[in-house]
């Protein structure tokens, strides 16, 4: 087992652990804005997970999904913020 395989395994474990921690905040989060921030961070972690997964499984197909995921995370965050601003005005 060389250094690269070890590093990829450790990265998969660390990123999976941080996804679990963010899920805790997503469940606990007192306000709805906390949950939106946690969802944004979850999709960002999914991008990093896709990058590590492409090295581990030796396929590069899923990097395109990373681009779409980054776009969707930004758009959903802005849409949620717009909805929250509309709710405050009423």
């Amino acid at each position, binding site marked *: 087992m*060389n*250094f*690269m395989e*070890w*590093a*990829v395994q*450790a*990265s998969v474990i*660390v*990123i999976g*652990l*941080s*996804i679990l*921690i*963010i899920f*805790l*905040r997503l469940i606990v989060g007192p*306000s709805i*804005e*906390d949950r*939106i*921030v*946690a969802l*944004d*961070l979850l999709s*960002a*972690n999914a*991008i*990093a997970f896709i*990058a*590590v997964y*492409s*090295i581990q499984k030796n396929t*590069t197909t899923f*990097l*395109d999904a*990373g*681009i779409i995921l*980054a*776009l969707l*995370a*930004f758009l959903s*965050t*802005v849409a*949620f*913020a717009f909805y*929250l*601003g509309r*709710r*405050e005005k009423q």
Partner: protein
Amino acid sequence: MKEILSGSLLLMGSVFILLSAVGILRMPDLYTRMSATTKASTLGIGLVLLGTILFWQDFGIASRAIAIIVFLFLTAPVAAHVIGRAAYLGKVPLWEKTNIDEFKKREHPSDSSSSMPE
């Protein structure tokens, strides 16, 4: 040599991602949580994608990964600003030890009860 560089970039990036996850769990209020997560996770994802570029050394992969990095660096501050503004206007409470509130000072210049001492 290439593998050592790429592997250490992956490890550093995943450590920064873990730091941002610990930050979102442990920080006291929403604004400090956002301050921890946006910066640390953007840096972590950038490092992981740089490690991916170095591992593959292929033009198609590099262009996709650089597109993701540039997009994240452009949109993460904008998204954090939008969510933070919506949260402040929606009266999400600040931490009780917060002593600088420049937004409130700009909106109500006469109200100096909780602004910082000059």
